[in-house]
């Protein structure tokens, strides 16, 4: 009766295998081993993509499994990035300041050092004092705790307020979008304490590791991202399998029926929302040191909408679908917008992909939603085809419920 977790979820094993092979191949081909087929900047792109895959599976759990179309998960991603960025900036600036003050005739007091760091960091927004927000920024351990706590608490409070008043469907999506927009607008202010629209920069330079070449650091972060994605995948595969998954999917398809079975639907939604927000925060904390810079534009609502597009194109309701969607679309996106895609000359008009990529993405999104609701992940059903009797209609009355096209073929 009690088959092992892996036996019940063979996709976990296949996923971990594919991820390990990918990680090793990239490492071997990188500049670290001297092969150099993959440039350091592309290793960073791949590492960032793995972080995006991690937030995509979180999005898939909250939307594809639980039916909550959150358009605010990038806010949690960004908060995770800011949390780690604060320590990176503080620690690095501290080293620089201490070095420059070392030649001073009198040894600097602690206060002088802190003031000098503050002037360095906040000079750009015309301030020279640490705001309260930075109280823990000197400590890596405390800021790592913030990576988990800040997104988690925000999701807990926001989710509690929203789910308690039974806001569902499109209204909840609008609410989450308002949250991320409000946060982004707040951070744009110079006196928000997080350097306004300048954001935090220089995050790729790890304090005290100036001697280590970026090629090594990039591979280290690539590995960390791969491990985080693997662990996140196993965690979510465990959550959505078994009875928890059963209840979550039931909430997606018909939440009032779940209430009459005696389950407190709001607690379940809050659990899923908060857990996915924490994972999104961790993904952000791994992403931004690789990106090197974080600013409030990163948590604008459009980012969270992209996230929903990735999951839809990859196939919602299956974790590997979200990974495929995020990796495929984000890599394709950087190829098109990076100017590498050849322009198409139609004679009377030249299609420059930097301008037309968004149109192409929009059209593919509409096409996938209309014609292939199972997304790219649905292709795997063609391999493992189980003939199943026809059924009619959607799977439940709720807005997020599976439509009939999303069921087994």
């Amino acid at each position: 009766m009690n088959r092992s977790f892996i036996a019940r979820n063979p996709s976990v094993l296949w996923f971990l295998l594919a991820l390990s092979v990918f990680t090793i191949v990239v490492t071997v081909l990188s500049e670290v081993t001297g092969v150099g087929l993959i440039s350091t900047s592309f290793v960073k792109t791949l590492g960032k993509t793995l972080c995006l895959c991690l937030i995509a599976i979180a999005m898939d759990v909250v939307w594809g499994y639980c039916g909550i179309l959150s358009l605010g998960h990038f806010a949690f991603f960004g908060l995770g990035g800011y949390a780690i960025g604060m320590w990176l900036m503080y620690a690095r600036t501290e080293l620089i300041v201490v070095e420059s003050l070392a030649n001073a005739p009198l040894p600097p007091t602690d206060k002088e050092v802190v003031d000098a760091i503050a002037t360095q960091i906040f000079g750009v927004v015309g301030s020279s004092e640490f705001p309260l927000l930075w109280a823990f920024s000197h400590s890596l351990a405390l800021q790592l705790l913030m990576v988990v706590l800040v997104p988690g608490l925000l999701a807990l409070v926001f989710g509690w307020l929203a789910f308690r008043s039974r806001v569902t469907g499109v209204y909840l999506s609008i609410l989450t979008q308002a949250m991320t927009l409000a946060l982004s607008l707040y951070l744009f202010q110079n006196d928000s304490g997080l350097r306004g629209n300048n954001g935090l920069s220089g995050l790729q330079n790890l304090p005290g590791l100036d001697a280590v070449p970026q090629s090594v650091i990039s591979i280290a972060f690539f590995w960390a991202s791969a491990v985080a994605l693997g662990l996140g995948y196993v965690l979510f595969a465990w959550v959505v399998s078994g009875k928890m998954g059963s209840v979550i999917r039931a909430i997606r398809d018909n939440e009032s029926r779940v209430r009459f079975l005696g389950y407190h639907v709001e607690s379940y939604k809050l659990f899923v929302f908060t857990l996915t927000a924490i994972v999104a925060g961790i993904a952000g904390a791994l992403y931004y040191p690789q990106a090197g810079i974080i600013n409030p534009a990163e948590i604008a609502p459009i980012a969270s909408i992209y996230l929903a597009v990735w999951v839809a194109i990859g196939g919602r309701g299956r974790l590997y679908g979200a990974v495929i969607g995020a990796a495929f679309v984000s890599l394709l996106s950087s190829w098109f917008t990076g100017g590498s895609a050849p322009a198409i000359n139609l004679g009377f008009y030249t299609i420059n992909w930097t301008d037309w990529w968004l149109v192409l993405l929009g059209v593919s999104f509409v096409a996938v939603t209309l014609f292939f609701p199972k997304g790219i992940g649905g292709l795997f059903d063609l391999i493992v085809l189980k003939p199943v009797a026809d059924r009619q209609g959607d799977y439940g009355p709720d807005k997020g419920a599976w439509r009939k096209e999303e069921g087994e073929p």
Partner: protein
Amino acid sequence: MSTLLEVSGVSVTFDGFRAINNLSISIAQAELRAVIGPNGAGKTTFMDIITGKTKPDQGRVIWGPRSLSLLDMSESEIARQGIGRKFQKPTVFEAQTVRENLAMALKNPRGPFDVLFYRKSRATAARIDEIAEEIGLTDDLPRRAGELSHGQKQWLEIGMLLAQDPQLLLVDEPAAGMTPAEREHTTALLVRAAQTRAVVVVEHDMEFVRRLNCKVTVLHEGSVLAEGSLDHVTKNQDVIDVYLGR
């Protein structure tokens, strides 16, 4: 017999329309009760009030030996108190297997962390098999509920109700869409269930009610018109006028 559920003086108004008007019904610990009435008599609203879906404007709903008020509880708390409901239109979780549907309904702790760390046991598996046997879906346990026929979905929902092991079963038109043989099976099942718990059946079909052979409450315009055995209420002139005569 002690009272399990006491509904007294309850009224509900929807946009000026009085769906329930000073309704009082009491259900004993182990009893089978049929509730009949014409369309719009307030049968479904009556169930909505008990299960917490609709909050009444006035009146009291008192539950169980500890005389708790159901009006202060959410739907899920009421369900955990031991009130199970079967809907008129079968509502099962179609994307999931019959076994998953039954496992979800099975009486177990309902908190998120209880469920997250829930482990299947031999006892629960045996209980699911037992229920599946009872509702005739043993062979269909691994199938998706969405593939079942209308009648089988009705059975599955009854099975989920049994799995919840409630003290009070509220059953809305259980026999709709069933064959005569299945109706007989349903009757037997409900009668058997009513030996150990309270069962309230809302039904249109008089023949089915007759076979249940139990106390009948006739609702009309949101309040009780008559109560007693089926023969007694069918002889009542008011009942004949508003319901049977038509």
